[in-house]
């Protein structure tokens, strides 16, 4: 799919509507609004998603517009929210549950792994699970404990799930619309530190987005590929600007789909640049960075100039606000990673 690699957009190629200036939060809200309008089987449920509109206001106004039966508050129990969504899917609905914060997906892991991800398989395809689970994710907002977790490695390892994370308003809009059209469970990881970041969003205007299944090149470059997702994409774009000042032309690959991973896009990019750094907030050991690095190594071993470098969170619990800038890969740490790859000498 190298042809997609040259288009640095969300892939809304057939849009017929004028672009809007929206925050990621606004873009997701718009997507949900359209989904509810188009698909009478779509439901939004979770803690505080109704009257309040969600603690991040992503579901703001939806209950008033689409009815408080279709956009409804549940009691405070994440396993219950997921278990109920599974039953609703068995009854023919397309639930879009929210867990309020990443760290509160853990109580629902049993329902997600043993039930949501397996019902289609167990039932031999007769009980599909078109459930899009929205999870405000990742750190960076000086929040209380358990409000800054990165669960992508856990989700990506679970057979039967698809996992996606948008990096900007257009991606948020288009990927959420795409996810909600799928007949399979999708974990939709929203980078909460980017909710209020604005950008141009071109709504579908009736023509579904195409080409949303793989990664995208957020910035083309020749010397090295930075692979990232969610909130780290914006940071990598900043890093690329800084590196450019030193004459280093960095390509930024926005992975988007964390399961399945777009190995072709990774191979095409790194086949060209011959060097890669993968960046994520999650702890290093057994993080998704290992998978990305290994996919790249498997596909590009012959041409790689240096082992793929990982710039990640540390193997420590996500720290309190005062220390989060030490924990999350910052610009300097990513630049150090780039430097290590560029200076690598075979031992």
């Amino acid at each position, binding site marked *: 799919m190298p042809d997609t690699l040259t288009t640095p957009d969300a892939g809304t190629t057939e849009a017929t509507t004028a672009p809007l200036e929206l925050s990621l939060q606004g873009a997701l809200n718009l997507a949900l609004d359209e989904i509810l309008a188009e698909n009478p089987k779509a439901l939004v449920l979770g803690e505080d998603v109704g009257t309040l509109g969600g603690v991040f206001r992503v579901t703001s106004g939806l209950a008033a517009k689409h009815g408080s039966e279709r956009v409804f508050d549940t*009691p405070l129990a994440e396993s219950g929210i997921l278990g109920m*969504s599974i*039953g609703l899917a068995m009854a023919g609905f397309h639930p879009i549950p929210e867990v309020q914060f990443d760290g509160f997906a853990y109580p629902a892991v049993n329902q997600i792994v*043993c*039930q949501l991800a397996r019902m289609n*398989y167990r039932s031999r395809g007769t009980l599909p699970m*078109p459930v899009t689970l929205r999870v405000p994710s990742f750190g960076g907002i000086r929040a209380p404990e358990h409000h800054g977790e990165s669960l992508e490695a856990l989700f990506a390892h679970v057979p039967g799930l698809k996992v996606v994370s948008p990096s900007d308003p257009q991606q948020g809009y288009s990927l959420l619309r795409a996810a909600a059209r*799928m007949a399979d469970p999708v974990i939709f990881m929203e980078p909460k530190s980017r909710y209020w970041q604005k950008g141009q969003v071109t709504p579908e205007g009736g023509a579904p987005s195409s080409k949303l299944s793989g990664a995208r090149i957020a910035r083309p470059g020749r010397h090295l590929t930075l692979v990232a997702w969610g909130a780290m994409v914006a940071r990598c774009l900043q890093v690329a600007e800084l590196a450019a000042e030193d004459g280093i032309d960095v390509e930024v690959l926005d992975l988007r789909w964390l399961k*399945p991973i777009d190995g072709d896009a990774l191979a095409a990019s790194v086949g060209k640049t011959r060097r890669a750094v993968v960046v994520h907030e999650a702890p290093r050991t057994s993080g998704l960075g290992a998978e990305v690095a290994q996919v790249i190594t498997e596909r590009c071993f012959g041409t790689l100039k240096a082992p793929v470098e990982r710039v990640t969170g540390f193997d420590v619990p996500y720290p309190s606000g005062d220390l989060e800038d030490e924990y999350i890969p910052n610009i300097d740490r990513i630049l150090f990673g780039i430097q290590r790859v560029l200076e690598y000498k075979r031992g």
Partner: protein
Amino acid sequence: MQTSGQSTTAPGRGALANAPREPLPQLPVVDPVTPGELVELYRLMTAVRHLDRAAISWQRQGIIPAYAPELGQEAAQVGSALAVDTRRDFVFPTYRELGVARACGVDMVEYMATHKATWHGGLWDPAAAHVAPIQAVVAGSVLHAVGWAHGQTLEARGELPEDGYNVAITYLGDGASSQGDVHEAMNFAAVFKAPVVFFVQNNGWAISVPTEKQVAGGSVSARGAGYGIPALKVDGNDPAAVLTATRRAVAHARAGHGPVLVEAMTYRRGPHATSDDPGRYRTLEEERADAGADPIGRLRERILAEGAADTAALDAAEAAAAAEAEQVREGVLALGPRPGAEMFDLVFQETTDELERQKANWQEETESRKESEDA
């Protein structure tokens, strides 16, 4: 209840401390079980007994690797299952609901497929049968039943249909009642007034742990009141009593009055599963005393005493049950392994390139291995 100190000003929500609680709603009364239904219960329970016994022998013969007998729970299972209408209602079984599945018309070879290790959950079409796949996580599907049931009220857009709501019935054991999901399910069901029946088979044991060490308060049905859910505790070895109780529960839910909890007191007469050794945790004397009279024997006596059928008719049911078990045995023997490609093809509705690649590798390696084996 604690009474609070004197307060001279408007007490706000603090006053709720002494507010009286609403009484639980009364369940509807249903027609008594007819003589014909007694015989139908007998026919089904006997069929289930034979299949269950047969499955144990199949395990001993190496035809199936493992099995979880339901010996002694026929009345609870068949009695409850006959109260629902699988053309419209939906049944969520555990791993021990042979009797429920049989009474709901599930194909018994497709049911046994899970115990033959052919396919987790069984081979029948749960969407068509309105019987969910076998569930190996205890309490795993209790929340699904609540979700499905809430879906029925959403479908009806708040207007009770003329023939009432479709109802979900979910099965769980005394052991399963300890899981957090059961609490979340009961609370959700009551908050949403979902048309769901929680059917507990309290069979005295969760593997080796007796109910006394499992269910604080002594009874699962006692939990209902805390959620405002009406509960029935019933002699689970009396199929007519179970049928009546479950019918009342279903009627209540169907009429839009919300969830009901039914606890059938029964006894797991056999081992937890074919690999279990109950001698390690209970004596034969205890078993005999706690199990009481066999539910099928009791029903037979009652049918004959009430003249609902004669010995010949009941013996014929026995013979039919034996023949059925033999037929199922043949079906089970004929069950071949599923093609390995299904491992990949049934993961998603829309498969992924990565999975296709893994499948292709698997196929290639399997073929080249077969070739070298053949060579």
